[in-house]
């Protein structure tokens, strides 16, 4: 029970942390200044969420670990983030679609998790939900704008969909430690799909037929991308261990 709660909290922390890291790659390089600021802001929100989860996990672990130890001193095989969150930015289409997939999932999840009987988890979910509501609106609007925008943007959304779709199923295939969430993942999946269908109809993007999904992120088997991300992310802490910053 206790170890499941720790694993689950770390999983929530890792997913938000890794997606934050990906989104932050846009900072200073966005397609237009307003959107550069928006994606950086989302990155910052996700970083804040991950810190709340890491801090809570550290407190549950009852030794002298802390948020930075958890973020910077674990290897790829210990990271429990969703594979979706580590996929490269590639272009704005991939970025907004990845964000939409994740935010829609997070929104439905946190709506329930805010009533969890673990008060800390519930409180973090309730606080995060406000931010997620904005991320969902922002990313959903972009999916429609690009899907129904120009011929090129439409094509790019199709390519992004093809690249990312296989990583969506993992969100709803529960690992044993996720049972502690008390979430009905099948119902969550159905709700998520229903929302997605409405949005994609407006965006004129077909849902791929493939239902064979990649999994493994939540139990530490990642795509090849994560190793490079962690190499960069953990560089300072690994090079200069045991320092204050």
């Amino acid at each position, binding site marked *: 029970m206790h170890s499941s709660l720790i694993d689950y909290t770390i999983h929530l922390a890792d997913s938000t*942390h890794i997606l934050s*890291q990906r989104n*932050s*790659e846009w*900072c*200073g*390089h*966005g*397609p*237009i*200044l*307003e*959107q*550069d*600021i928006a994606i*950086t*802001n989302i*990155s*910052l929100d996700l*970083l*804040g969420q*991950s*810190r709340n989860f*890491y801090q809570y996990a550290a407190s549950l672990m009852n030794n002298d670990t802390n*948020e*930075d130890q958890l*973020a*910077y001193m674990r290897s790829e095989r210990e990271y429990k983030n969703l594979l979706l969150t580590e996929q490269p930015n590639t*272009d*704005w289409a991939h970025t907004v679609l990845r964000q939409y997939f994740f935010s829609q999932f997070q929104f439905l999840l946190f709506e329930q998790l805010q009533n969890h009987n673990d008060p800390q988890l519930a409180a973090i979910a309730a606080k995060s939900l406000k931010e997620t509501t904005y991320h969902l609106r922002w990313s959903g609007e972009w999916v*429609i*704008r*690009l899907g*129904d*925008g*120009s011929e*090129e*943007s439409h094509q*790019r959304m199709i390519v992004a969909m093809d690249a990312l779709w296989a990583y969506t199923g993992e969100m709803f295939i529960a690992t044993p430690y996720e049972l502690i969430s008390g979430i009905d993942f099948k119902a969550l999946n159905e709700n998520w799909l229903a929302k997605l269908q409405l949005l994609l109809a407006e965006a004129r993007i077909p849902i791929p037929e493939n239902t064979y999904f990649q999994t493994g992120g939540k139990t530490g088997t990642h795509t090849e991308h994560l190793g490079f991300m962690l190499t*960069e*992310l953990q*560089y*300072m*802490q690994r090079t*200069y261990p045991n*320092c*204050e*910053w």
Partner: protein
Amino acid sequence: MLVQDMEQIFQDKIDREIKIEPKDWMPEAYRKTNLRQISQHAHSEVVGMLPEGNWISRAPSLKRKAILLAKIQDEGGHGLYLYSAAETLGFSRDEMINDLLSGKAKYSSIFNYPSLSWADMGAVGWLVDGAAILNQVMLCRTSYGPYARAMVRICKEESFHQRQGFDALLVLSRGSKEQKAMCQDAINRWWWPSLMMFGPKDSESTNSDQSMKWKIKRKTNDELRQQFVDMIAEQIKTLGMVLPDPALKWNEARKHYDFGAINWEEFWNVVKGNGPCNKQRLAARNKAHDEGDWVREAAKQYAEKKRNRAKEQAA
């Protein structure tokens, strides 16, 4: 009314500390000087996101990463207000950005220096933002209304930036041997370029007299530079570090610090495009702009479609 009379009325307003507003008559040179200065300032905020952005992915702690992201996001926001302020002078943001991308418009040369270690994030906050603030505090009282008002808001955020920079260095200065070395190295590299941020010596500054008369600026380059040296020479004592200038010394008679000669050859070369990162910075801005082209085009087409659909529905 004769132009001479208009100029007299304009100068009277300035002398009486009445702000000049976008619809007021103003001499063409006043408009141009403000436009050049405000747009350069906007470009500096945006290009300034690059050297700091360089360390987001490698920030050494989650807290430091959050501070850095928030700070860079602020710089982007400053860019937005400043582009808006500049647009009141009759030049569109697209035109300004095109001038930046083509290399015609300038931005602060300081951002043509590389950020090579984590300590540079502290040094940039403390020294670069510190130098910028002195200039910006003065600009809160500049004569052109929209610029002055944008500056008030920007100054509040900038002083937070400077504090966080100093705080980041303070932690390093009390840390391990490597951290201390990193801190000193960053100060060594950023000190002289920071002094250059105030621009050429008064004796060689071409626009200075007119800008003072029009109250676009209220202190000369050399006055601001001296104010900066005096401030930093004191603050560095808390860090237990040294400034890389053997000539730095308190002058009791002047009640100011004396300091060594600035390398003006380096300054003019960086201005001309020969600095360590001029090409990279411009290339990065151009790449972001070019790769964003299809996104902006899609947004435009979508907005048009939406408008047309609304019209059809109304009909």
